[in-house]
C-alpha cells in the first residue's frame, strides 16, 4: 500500500472542488447552526468527556504506572493518582458542539476573506467517510500553518464527518481565551517535552489510546511534530505514531486507518514570520493579544488553498510481515513496554512513508516554479525568459510526477503575471525585469546589516516556496550532483556518490531509510525517460540534450551544498574545542550571514553528528 508507484507520472489523482463557493452563496449563521449528524464508527459506544476521563484514570495501564511511580518516589498512590488526574485535566479536550459552531461561523467569514478558494478532493472525503465507519481513524495532516487544524475541523464539520480530537502543543494553552476555545473544539494539549516523566507519558498515551479503542473520535496529530518553517517536510516523529499503532499491535483493535492529508497554501499566512524566525528572531509567543494584532493578515489575499485527503493506510497491512504481534503475548498488556528494535524500525519506516505520501499529494502552484527560477537567478530575469523557463520547468516537473495545479486554457504569461501579482511583496517588476526584492517601503536609514537581513527574509520566504517542489526534483538532483562529482561514468561510482549525498542530506529531506537503491533507480528511470541519460549495464552516460536539465538539477541542490560547506568550514576553521550547541547557530550565522537558515544549520549539524564527523561531548 505504501510502496508508492515507481512510475510517479502515471499516478491518478482526484479532482478538487471549491468548498467556499457554497459558503459565498448562503448564510454562514444558518450553516453554523445546521443539523450536524456525522457518520460514526460502527463499534462506537458514545461516552461523555467526563466518563472518558474516569476510564483513563481507572485503566489498568495507568493504575500500574501510578503504583510504580508511587513506590519509586515514596509518595502515596492517592497523591500520585491526584497528580495524574491533574495532568489529565490540563491535557484533555472538552469538545462542545456549540463552540464548534461558533468556530464554523467565524472561520467561514475568515476563510472567505483570506482565500480565493479552498479546494478539497471529495473522493478523499468519501473514502474517509467509509474508513470512519470501519475502523478507528487517525488523521495525519501536513503542518505548514496554524490554519491547518482549524481547516481540518472545519472541513470535517462541513462533510458531516466526526470531529477530530487534535494533539496540540502546550503553547496554545497560554493563549487565555483562545486556548480554552480550542479545547472546546477538540484540541488536547501536550507538553513539548516530558522525556523522563513516566506518569505524564502514561496519562498521555492512555488518553489517546482510550479514545482510539473506543472509536470515540478520529485522532489528529502532526507527524512532523511542529509547523515546518521552511515548507519542507520535517523528519517525522514516531512517539504518537507508536501510541496509535499499539492498540493494533496488542490486538485491542482489529485495525487502525491512517489518513495522510496534504494541505498546501498558495501563500502561507506566516511566510515572513517564518523567515524571521529562521534568521534568529524568536517566535512570538502565542498569545491572544498577539493574535488580535495579527488581524492585519485578514486584509491580504492568500490565493487558494488545497486539501487532499489521501487513501487510508491500514496499519494492519503496513505491519504485515514486519511486526510479530505475538511478541506481546507474554506480558500483560497494561504493563508499558518500550517498542522493540524491530518495532522502532517499523515505526520509523512507516512515518517516513506517510510523510512521503503527504508530500506527493501536496498541490503545487505555478509560483513554486517561478520561485525556484528566481532563486537561481539572483540578479533577476526578463519576464520573457522567465515565462519560457517556467514553461520548460513545468513540463519537467510534470514528467517527474509533480502534482501541479496549473490553470487549463490559460496562456503561460497570464498564469505567471497572476502569480507575480499575488506574491508582489517578495519581488519587484520593472520594465519587464523580475527580481526578488524588498518592496515594503524602504526605511530611510537602514544599516547595511539591516539591508542584508531584509534581503535574507525575502530570500528565505521565497525559498520556502521553492522547497515545496524539492521532493519532486530531489532524487534526480542527487543523481545529477553525484554524476558531476563522481568524475566517472561508472554506475558503481555514481551510486556511491549518490548514496553519500543521500546520506548526508537525510536530515534535510525526506529520504526513507533503506530506500537508497530504489531512489537511485527512480532517479535513473526519470532522467532516462526525459532523455537526459542513458543507463547502460555498468555505465551512466549523459545525452547531448541533457546538459540543461542536469545543470538545473544541480543548482536545485546548490544552496544546500553550499550551506553544508559553510557549516563545515566554520567547524574546521573557527571553533575552539568546546562549542556548546546553543552557541552553534548564532555563531555560524555571524560567520556567514547570507541565506543560511537555522533549519539548515541544525540539519547540517545533525547530519555531521550522525556521520560521526563531529562528536558531541556532554559537559
Amino acid at each position, binding site marked *: 500500500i505504501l510502496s508508492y508507484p515507481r512510475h510517479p507520472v502515471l499516478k491518478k489523482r482526484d479532482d478538487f472542488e471549491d468548498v467556499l463557493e457554497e459558503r459565498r452563496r448562503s448564510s454562514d449563521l444558518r450553516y453554523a447552526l445546521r443539523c450536524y449528524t456525522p457518520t460514526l464508527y460502527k463499534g462506537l459506544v458514545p461516552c461523555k468527556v467526563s466518563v472518558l476521563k474516569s476510564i483513563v484514570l481507572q485503566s489498568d495501564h495507568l493504575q500500574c504506572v501510578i503504583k510504580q511511580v508511587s513506590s519509586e518516589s515514596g509518595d502515596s498512590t492517592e497523591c500520585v493518582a491526584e497528580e495524574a488526574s491533574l495532568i489529565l485535566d490540563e491535557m484533555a479536550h472538552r469538545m462542545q458542539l456549540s463552540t464548534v459552531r461558533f468556530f464554523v461561523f467565524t472561520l467561514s467569514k475568515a476563510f472567505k476573506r483570506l482565500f480565493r478558494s479552498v479546494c478539497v478532493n471529495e473522493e478523499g472525503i468519501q473514502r474517509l467517510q467509509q474508513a470512519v465507519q470501519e475502523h478507528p481513524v487517525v488523521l495525519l495532516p501536513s503542518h505548514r500553518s496554524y490554519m491547518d487544524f482549524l481547516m481540518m475541523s472545519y472541513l470535517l464539520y462541513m462533510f458531516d464527518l466526526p470531529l477530530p480530537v487534535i494533539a496540540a502543543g502546550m503553547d496554545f494553552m497560554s493563549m487565555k481565551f483562545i486556548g480554552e476555545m480550542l479545547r472546546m473544539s477538540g484540541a488536547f494539549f501536550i507538553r513539548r517535552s516530558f522525556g523522563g516523566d513516566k506518569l505524564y507519558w502514561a496519562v498521555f498515551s492512555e488518553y489517546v489510546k482510550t479514545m482510539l479503542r473506543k472509536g470515540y473520535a478520529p485522532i489528529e496529530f502532526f507527524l512532523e511534530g511542529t509547523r515546518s518553517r521552511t515548507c519542507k517536510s520535517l523528519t517525522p516523529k514516531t512517539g504518537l505514531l507508536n501510541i496509535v499503532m499499539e492498540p493494533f499491535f496488542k*490486538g*485491542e483493535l*482489529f485495525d487502525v486507518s491512517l489518513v495522510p492529508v496534504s494541505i498546501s497554501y498558495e501563500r502561507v499566512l506566516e511566510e515572513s514570520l517564518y523567515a524571521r524566525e529562521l534568521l534568529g528572531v524568536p517566535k512570538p509567543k502565542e498569545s491572544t493579544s498577539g493574535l488580535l494584532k495579527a488581524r492585519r493578515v485578514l486584509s491580504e489575499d492568500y490565493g487558494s488553498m488545497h486539501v487532499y485527503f489521501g487513501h487510508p493506510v491500514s496499519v494492519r497491512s503496513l505491519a504485515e510481515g514486519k511486526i*510479530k*504481534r*505475538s511478541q*506481546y*503475548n507474554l506480558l*500483560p*498488556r497494561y504493563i508499558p513496554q518500550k517498542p522493540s528494535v524491530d518495532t522502532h524500525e517499523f515505526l520509523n519506516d512507516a512515518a517516513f512513508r506517510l510523510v512521503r505520501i503527504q508530500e506527493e499529494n501536496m498541490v503545487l502552484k505555478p509560483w513554486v516554479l517561478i520561485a525556484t527560477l528566481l532563486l537561481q537567478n539572483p540578479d533577476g530575469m526578463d519576464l520573457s525568459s522567465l515565462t519560457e523557463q517556467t514553461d520548460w520547468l513545468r513540463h519537467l516537473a510534470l514528467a517527474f510526477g509533480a502534482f501541479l495545479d496549473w490553470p487549463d486554457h490559460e496562456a503561460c504569461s497570464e498564469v505567471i503575471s497572476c502569480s507575480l501579482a499575488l506574491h508582489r511583496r517578495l519581488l519587484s517588476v520593472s520594465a519587464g525585469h523580475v527580481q526578488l526584492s524588498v518592496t515594503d517601503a524602504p526605511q530611510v536609514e537602514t544599516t547595511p546589516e539591516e539591508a542584508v537581513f531584509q534581503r535574507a527574509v525575502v530570500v528565505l520566504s521565497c525559498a520556502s516556496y521553492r522547497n515545496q517542489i524539492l521532493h519532486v526534483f530531489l532524487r534526480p538532483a542527487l543523481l545529477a550532483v553525484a554524476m558531476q562529482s563522481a568524475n566517472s561514468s561508472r554506475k558503481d561510482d555514481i551510486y556511491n556518490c549518490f548514496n553519500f549525498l543521500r546520506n548526508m542530506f537525510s536530515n534535510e529531506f525526506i529520504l526513507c531509510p533503506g530506500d537508497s537503491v530504489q531512489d537511485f533507480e527512480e532517479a535513473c528511470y526519470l532522467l532516462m525517460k526525459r532523455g537526459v541519460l542513458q543507463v547502460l549495464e555498468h555505465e551512466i552516460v549523459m545525452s547531448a540534450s541533457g546538459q540543461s536539465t542536469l545543470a538545473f538539477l544541480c543548482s536545485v541542490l546548490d544552496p544546500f551544498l553550499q550551506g553544508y560547506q559553510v557549516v563545515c568550514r566554520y567547524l574546521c576553521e573557527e571553533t575552539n574545542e568546546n562549542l556548546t550547541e546553543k552557541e552553534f547557530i548564532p555563531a555560524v550565522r555571524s560567520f556567514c550571514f547570507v541565506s543560511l537558515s537555522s533549519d539548515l544549520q541544525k540539519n547540517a549539524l545533525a547530519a555531521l553528528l550522525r556521520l560521526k564527523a563531529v562528536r558531541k561531548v556532554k559537559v
Partner: protein
Amino acid sequence: MSICYHTDPMKVVYHLIYFAIGCYETAYKLGLSLSFRQEIMKWNGWGYSDSRFLFNKKGQAEFTGKRYRLSGLILPSLKDWFEGTFGANLQHKSPPTVNLSAVAPPNLNEPFIEDLKAAGVAASHDPEDRVFRAHGHCLHEIFALREGRIGRVPDMVVWPSCHSDVEKIVELACKHNVCLIPYGGGTSVSSALECPHEETRSIVSLDTSQMNRILWIDEKNLTAHVEAGIIGQDLERQLNEHGYCTGHEPDSMEFSSLGGWVATRASGMKKNIYGNIEDLVVHIKMVTPRGVIEKSCLGPRMSTGPDIHHFILGSEGTLGVVTEVTMKIRPIPEYQKYGSVVFPNFQQGVACLREVARQRCAPASIRLMDNEQFQFGHALKPQVSSIFTSFLDGLKKFYITKFKGFDPHHLCVATLLFEGDRGKVLQHEKQVYDIAAKFGGLAAGEDNGQRGYMLTFVIAYLRDLGMDYYVIGESFETSVPWDRVLDLCRNVKERIVRECKERGVQFPPLSTCRVTQTYDAGACVYFYFAFNYRGLSDPVHVYEQVEHAAREEILANGGSLSHHHGVGKLRKEWMKESVSGVGLGMLKSVKEYVDPQNIFGNRNLL
C-alpha cells in the same frame, strides 16, 4: 423423547438418553463384525448413516433417523436462516459422487502379512475398509471424498483384539519395516489420519475398535481399567450399568475412542467437575517399538521426574499405540439440571464467565454463544406443537427484546449444566444466576440450555447438509488468557470475514464463536466458520487459506495453537513457534529414542 430425572442415585437415566441405546450392544451380542462401524456410519460424512439433515419436498428442513432428540422433526426456520446467512439456494445442489474404484491397489508387505496370519491377527485389504480409515473429518478430507477423489489410503487394516496382539503387530512391523497408523474413532480434525504422501513403505492402519472391554472396576479406589479402543458412549453406558461414569464427554464422544483422547489430550464438556483427560488417567499402557511403557503402580500422584504420561498424552500416534488405560470413575450424579442465561451482549457474557471462573463456581459446563450462534440455534428450533407454546415463545421474546431492551442483534446466550446432589445443585444454580444478574444476564430457562447442548451433537451433521448446497465450513478452537478473550474473538471473526472477501467469496461468511470452557487463567474459544463457495474454482484451497489466516490471527492475539483438537499435520508448521526450538528438539529426541525406524510414521506433530 425427553430427559427424566430420577432421585434414586443408582438408577438415574443418563442425560444422554437420546443416544441410540444399545445399538452397539445388539451388534456385539449378534457376534462381532470387524467393520461393523463402517456399516452403520457414513463413509463420506459425519456420523450415523441414518441420521442426516435434508430439505424435504416442501423445502422444509428435517433431521432423519431416530437417534437424536431432533430426529424426525421438522425445522421450519432452518431454510430461511440457511438461505439468508449464506446466500445459498435450494435450487443449487452439489451432491456427492461415489467412486470407490479410484482406490489404488494396496502396496502389501507379504512377509509381514504371513507373519501376521501366523500370529492370528485379523486383517483386511478390502478397499472400503482402507478408505474408511484413511481420513478424519477435516473439511478437505470430506470434500475430497464427496468429490470421489481418494488419495493415498492405508494398504491394509489390522484389528488387534488385546494388548498382546498389539505387541505382536508392532514387533512384526519393526521386523518388516512397515508403517503403522493407529486408528481409534476416526474423528480427528487435524489431518492426523492422512497417510503421508512421501511414505513409500506399506501403510497399515491399526484399528483399535476390537479392544473395547472394561477389564475391571475398582470401587474402593474408584478406578476402572479399560482397553483403549472403547468408544466414548460405550464406555459411559457400560460404566453407568455399574452406577458409575467417567464424566469425560468430548463433543465427539459418540464416535471417538479412549485411546484417541489420550493421544490428543482431549477435553470434555464437563471438565469443571471431572477434569480433562490428563486429570482423569491414573495409568497408561502404550506399546512402542522399544517395548511397553507404563508406570509401576497406581499411585495418584508421583514425583518421579517429568511425568512420562505427558510424553504419551498428545503424542498423536507418533510413538506407539495406547492399549490400556486406568481411569478415575465417579458415581453417577444424583441430579442434573440444564439452564441458560441471556446477556445483552457478548462482552457482558464474557465478563460473567470470567467472574464465575474467578469465584471458582463454574457448573459442570458453562458455554457462551455469540449472537450469530444464538440465531443459528434459533433456526434449529423444531416446529412447535401447540399454539400455546408458540404464544409463550412470543411472550418470552417480547419480554427480552422490548421490555428488557436487549437488541436481538447483540444479545447472546450462555448454556449451563449443573450436576451433583440435588440440594447442592440448586444452591449452586442460584449462585451462578446471581452472578449472571450482575452482568445484566436474565435466566432463559432449562429448555434453551438443553437445546444448546443437543446442538453440539447435531451441528456436525449440518456440515454435510451445507455441502449439498455449495456451503463448506469447519470449526477450530484455541485457549486464551481471560483479558484477551474479547479481542481475540472479535479479531479472528473479522479476519475470517475479511479474508473471505479478499479471496473472492461472494457472500459474507458465517463467522461465529463461543466460549466453551473456563479455567482459572483463561478460556477455551471455539470458532465456526462457513461460506457459500459458488463461483470459486478451488473452494477448498480458499477455505484452507482462510483457516490458515485465522490461526495466524489467533496466535498473534495470544491464543494457543490448540486447546484439544491437537496439532496433527494441519498445524505442524506452527509447532516450533508454539513450544520453542528447544521444546521441539526435546520432543524429537524422544521420538528418536522410542521409534528410530519411524514405524509410527503418520508424521503428526513434529
